[in-house]
């Protein structure tokens, strides 16, 4: 049993953090009781807006000594209940630690506090002709959150995921001690890579208070192409062909007409084309327009040969906005199209994407659920949504359980994983355990114990 926060605790916290940055019980907005999808609501007892590593350290040390649970929180946009304070206790919100501390143009790194938002970071470095490639859909997520969930996004096909851009971390351990892992170095073979263990650990091992991120020179040009198809089957069958063509692509996304229509309704904005059942969206980037032209000509010809109706150019800021804003809104749009939904964020080997999407259609029919999906076809990471559509609670639960069971079993059979980028948190724990087995879960728990022997940091998550 954890200690409940009492007046004495609050008094102490107020002695180390200015009182106006500490909210207690009813002062805390309900927004902090849930994330964007996890399906669980619990309010923390205390919410603290921290501003420095030292502040985090002081709070952590006190919580450790008094066995009060602590959850770190960025923007709360996660989708698996990871940022929910299941056991109450203290929530440390990093949103006021939002400074970009340094851009190092020699080492090509940027050093940030964890509360910097992805969109702020992207805009800041791009103004300097540099580029932070990870591009998850939710641009108002914090970098701390992105690192903690190893967020992926739209450019993973070419550039990889958040993990590939983290060079160094400053963290506060559960007992309040401050540690630095990695640094500005490009190579590092110095013992266990604890930085990499922390990335994707969903705030269960330590709290990230500063990060050194790798940047790349900003590509001079980027052009997307939207390819319509008569059917979803035809669209997804092209994906492996595109990959096999060895074309250099930044993104390969797939989307269906119903999802696009949901996004149109959600945004109140028309998509540039809604004449066909399914679409593939590709992005090419590089420093020479001629090279990009060669690449898209090759790929578009291939796609047309394999059934694409055409290839539409998405080449100016306005056109990119009209297409990518819709793409960015898919999750919210599907959410708005139903009373309740749940998500399956599996990742399968790229070669299995088409088969897996087809399988989701079979599951939808078999179980009797609407299961729209979209996602990063080019890296095998799919976002599959089970929609309740006003059915009775009991029936919904049964159907959703059945559908998840089928989907995760198939993913495993295909050599896939439970989560490609949204994480495990609270909602996907049983599926992770089933996938990786008792030994691996035990290994994870042992690691957690070494970092956090009192299990006070984000308890009840991941393993």
């Amino acid at each position, binding site marked *: 049993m954890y200690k409940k926060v009492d007046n004495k605790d609050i008094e102490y916290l107020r002695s180390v953090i200015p009182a106006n940055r500490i909210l207690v019980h009813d002062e805390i907005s309900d927004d902090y009781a849930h994330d964007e999808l996890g399906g669980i609501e619990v309010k923390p007892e205390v919410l603290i807006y921290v501003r420095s590593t030292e502040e985090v350290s002081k709070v952590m040390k006190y919580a450790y000594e008094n066995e009060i649970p602590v959850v770190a929180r960025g923007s709360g946009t996660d989708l698996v209940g990871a940022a929910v304070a299941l056991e109450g206790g203290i929530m440390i919100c990093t949103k006021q630690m939002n400074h970009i501390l340094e851009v190092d143009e020699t080492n090509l790194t940027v050093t940030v506090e964890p509360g910097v938002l992805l969109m702020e970071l992207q805009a800041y470095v791009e103004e300097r002709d540099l580029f932070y490639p990870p591009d998850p859909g939710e641009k108002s997520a914090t970098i701390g959150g992105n690192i903690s969930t190893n967020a992926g996004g739209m450019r993973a096909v070419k550039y990889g995921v958040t993990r590939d851009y983290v060079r160094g971390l400053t963290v506060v351990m559960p007992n309040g001690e401050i540690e630095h892992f990695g640094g500005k170095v490009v190579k590092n073979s110095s013992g266990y890579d604890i930085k990499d263990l922390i990335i994707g650990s969903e705030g269960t091992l330590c709290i990230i208070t500063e990060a050194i991120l790798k940047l790349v020179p900003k590509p001079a*040009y980027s052009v997307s*192409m*939207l390819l319509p198809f008569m059917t979803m089957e035809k669209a997804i069958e092209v994906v492996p062909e595109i990959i096999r063509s060895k074309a250099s692509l930044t993104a390969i996304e797939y989307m269906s007409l119903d999802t696009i229509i949901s996004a149109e309704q959600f945004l109140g*904005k*028309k*998509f*540039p*084309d809604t004449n066909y059942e399914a679409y593939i969206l590709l992005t090419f980037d590089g420093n020479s327009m001629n090279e990009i032209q060669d690449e*898209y000509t090759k790929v*578009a010809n291939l796609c*047309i040969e394999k059934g694409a109706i*055409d*290839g*539409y*150019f*998405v*080449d*100016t*800021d*306005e*056109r990119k906005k*009209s297409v990518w804003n819709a793409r960015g809104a898919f999750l919210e749009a599907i959410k708005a199209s139903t009373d309740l939904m749940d998500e399956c964020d599996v990742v399968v080997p790229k070669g299995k994407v088409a088969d897996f999407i087809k399988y989701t259609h079979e599951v939808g029919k078999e179980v009797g659920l609407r299961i729209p999906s979209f996602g990063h076809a080019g890296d095998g990471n799919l976002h599959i949504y089970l929609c309740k559509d006003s059915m009775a609670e009991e029936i919904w639960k049964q159907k959703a359980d059945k559908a998840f069971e089928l989907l995760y079993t198939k993913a495993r059979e295909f050599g896939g994983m439970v989560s490609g980028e949204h994480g495990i948190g609270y909602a996907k724990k049983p599926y992770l355990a089933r996938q990786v087995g008792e030994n691996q879960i035990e290994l994870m728990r042992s690691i957690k114990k070494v970092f956090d022997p009192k299990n006070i940091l984000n308890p009840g998550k991941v393993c």
Partner: protein
Amino acid sequence: MNIIVCIKQVPGTTNVNVDPVTGTLIRDGVAAKMNPYDLYALELGFKLKDKHGGTLNVVSMGPNSALEVIREAIYMGADGGVLISDRKFGGADVLATSYTLCSGILALGDFDVILCGKQTTDGDTAQVGSELAEHLKVPHAANVRDVDVDGDRIKYVSNLDNKIVTAKIKTPCLLCVDGEVNTPRLPSFKRKLQYGDCAEQIRIITFDDLQDKDETHYGLKGSPTQVERIFNPDKKSEKEIIKDGNLASEMYKILRDRKFV
């Protein structure tokens, strides 16, 4: 129905720099694109054509590089295009530009409706459409959001700030199309393959093709506007932080005062 859409090539980014010495826009090295407002006019034209048939041609005045945007319009679905281009047309202000466009359009023959974008993102005067209609002596309407054919007239919806007007206008006519009224269709790769550089679809009109050969009507010579100085407007980065009171209603008040809502 014979539809003409006027289009212009503008710098590809909104962050255009002004040469501090000459006071002219620095266009070199910045990728160019079609004026975004013209795309809404183009889409409205496609809508008319899709529903009622006919032809849609684009007209652009500019240097040879403007062929790019004409091709783009053809890849989007235009049947053809005209580039009005001559050294003599350089340095034109609103009056000379609209006069030159008028002369070029007259050289093309009959039309039913001309659609223009509301304004360009580089010149920003929002006058060329109306002045073109005056030169052509055809009726015109501005801030148009939607069009349809109604017998021998065009029915249009126009947004006049505090009211939406639906009216009919006789053809031939000219309509200036408001921004953000639709989502313009995208250029097609297949049409690009089919038409290539569009040599057969594009006609170039020069000074010699125009009926009025008085050079003082064109270009710098035909431009009464004297530009004293062009400069980048200050980038506003003031922040106002509201801490106390009813934050939502304070914010609403500011947005309302600044006419965002």
